[in-house]
């Protein structure tokens, strides 16, 4: 009974959200949410179609869901702080604030979805070596992002102080850091997907 009520509540929320998003003309957000829902809940939907009931929400699922909600929230909080900092120093990122906030929510949702899939389906199948490699690739991606921000900042400061274009931080920010970031992200995705789709 509780589960049916929760399911009904989710359906009503989804309907309201759809109407709001259509009225805001945020079609890409709507498409992304539908795609994310299908990705996370395809087993639930399949069970509903096939057996006309939802699969049980057991302790493992509960544990994984709370971990992924926490990750999505942490991402949203960090991204919000960055946005506030950028707005406070008056950098014009995107004039359309609604889309920017929409993208932020969407990214937090993506983090939630990916970490749910990671904890629920990929993590137990990856093994110690896979997890270690994933951690390394994620660290490469994270560090290169930090290096990019720092180099761009330092390049501007040094160029401003010297009066000419500073080359070292420029090369790091435009070539090395993005390259390392791409390696980190692609590597993590490959390992993650390998874990997600490997048979148990």
């Amino acid at each position, binding site marked *: 009974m509780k589960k049916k009520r929760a399911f009904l509540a989710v359906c009503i929320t989804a309907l309201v959200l759809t109407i709001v998003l259509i009225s805001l003309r945020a079609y890409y957000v709507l498409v992304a949410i539908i795609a994310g829902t299908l990705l996370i809940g395809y087993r639930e939907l399949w069970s509903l179609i096939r057996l006309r009931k939802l*699969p*049980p929400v*057991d*302790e*493992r*699922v509960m544990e994984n869901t709370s971990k992924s909600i926490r990750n999505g929230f942490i991402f949203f909080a960090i991204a919000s702080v960055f946005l506030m900092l950028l707005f406070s120093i008056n950098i014009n990122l995107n004039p359309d604030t609604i889309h920017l906030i929409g993208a932020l929510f969407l990214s937090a949702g993506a983090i939630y979805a990916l970490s749910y899939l990671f904890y*629920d*389906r990929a993590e*137990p199948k990856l093994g110690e070596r896979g997890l270690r490699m994933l951690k390394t690739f994620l660290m490469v991606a994270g560090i290169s992002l930090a290096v990019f921000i720092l180099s761009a900042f330092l390049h501007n400061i040094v160029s401003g102080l010297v009066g000419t274009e500073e080359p070292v931080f420029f090369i790091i920010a435009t070539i090395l850091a993005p390259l390392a970031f791409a390696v980190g992200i692609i590597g993590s995705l490959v390992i993650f997907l390998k874990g997600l789709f490997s048979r*148990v």
Partner: protein
Amino acid sequence: MRTRIKEFRTRHNLTQEKLAQIVGVRRETIIFLEQGKYNPSLRLAYNVAKALKTNIEELFIFDDGA
């Protein structure tokens, strides 16, 4: 941690799906339990042991002496 869930399950002619239904969890949870990759709560361990007509000590084996 190693488990003997698969051994007991096949002894009782139960599929993963059927055992999951009896215990009230998803089939994936049974898969992860069989692989020893998920530490269940005491209640879940008890329920699985009960469904397989054995006890927790028989089902879950701790190699590291922990």
